[in-house]
């Protein structure tokens, strides 16, 4: 389903904002830096890397003129799932990101611990997505990047 077709059922239409996109990208970079911090728990670092992924997904939506309806349940899911449309991310990568999202929910709400290899995987995905979204914006939305 196109982004436009989801208006009212998960997405709102907005005017793309260079300021908001830049702020989200900068915030995502800070989250990635936080995820590298030594001496804090794996869960906190995982959460920071996941937040970066979510912010990048929101930035990509904004650049296309949309945002998730945050009052709706599943807005993290929606932002991530739409990365294929909002920034040309592959379906395979989106599956990995969705699996990380579910892991994050388990961690936040059930107190599950996160293995270090998953923290590393989440950081790697966040870094790759930052590169991908930045490159996509420079090419497809030059006025916003």
């Amino acid at each position, binding site marked *: 389903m196109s982004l436009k077709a989801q208006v009212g059922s998960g997405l709102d239409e907005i005017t793309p904002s260079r300021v908001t996109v830049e702020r989200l990208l900068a915030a995502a970079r800070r989250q990635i830096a936080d995820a590298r911090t030594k001496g804090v728990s794996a869960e906190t670092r995982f959460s920071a890397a996941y937040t970066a992924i979510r912010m990048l997904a929101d930035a990509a939506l904004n650049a296309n003129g949309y945002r998730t309806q945050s009052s709706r349940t599943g807005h993290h899911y929606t932002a991530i799932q739409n990365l294929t449309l909002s920034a040309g991310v592959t379906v395979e990568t989106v599956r990995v990101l969705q699996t990380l999202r*579910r892991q994050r929910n388990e961690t936040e709400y059930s107190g599950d611990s996160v293995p270090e*290899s*998953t923290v590393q995987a989440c950081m790697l995905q966040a870094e790759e997505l930052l590169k991908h979204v930045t490159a996509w914006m420079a090419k497809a939305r030059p006025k916003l990047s």
Partner: protein
Amino acid sequence: MKATPESAGDLLFPGGYRRRVLSLLLLHPDRTLHVREIARLTGTTAGTLNKELARLHRAGLLEREAVGNQVRYSADRESPIFGELSSILRKTVGLADVLVDALASAEKSGAVELAFVFGSMARSTESPRSDVDVMLIGNIDFAEAVRLLYPAGVTLGREINPKVYTKAQWRKAVAAKEPFVREVLAQPKIYLIGNDDELESAGRQRSR
């Protein structure tokens, strides 16, 4: 590839399509399917299936309803052995077979040394929407684990959540008595690769 070397599933359900039909319907009791859908999902032909489905219905295992000129089947939850039979299917042919197949290449390459299902699916307390929690111990990359398991999730109609530990991380977590790992160890598991003994030894600190 079977769930266990002596596959209990094979032994108990020698007919290939009978166990596929039973797994399909009893492990998804919320589904009601047309004969041709069952045929497609189990890789059989509608002609072969009609007789089999009618027998399973007469035996009280399946519910049958005629809608127009089509016949639809679903699990009969009122069957006195519904719970036990679903549990047997889940632990033998249903869930494990699909996951063992999905992990075959990773087992062969040594990327996964131990794998098991834990959580509600292993405890048989799942709801129709429960995810499948799969523990993987080895050097497999998280993204690769997602890629390998994704088709199995489609087959099972459930999301699969892999938990990936390297052997060293697993040992460390066991030694630190991490609550999550302790809970996993204490609860029922369905082994896909390895067994209780191997898991026990994987958790022990190296003596040298």
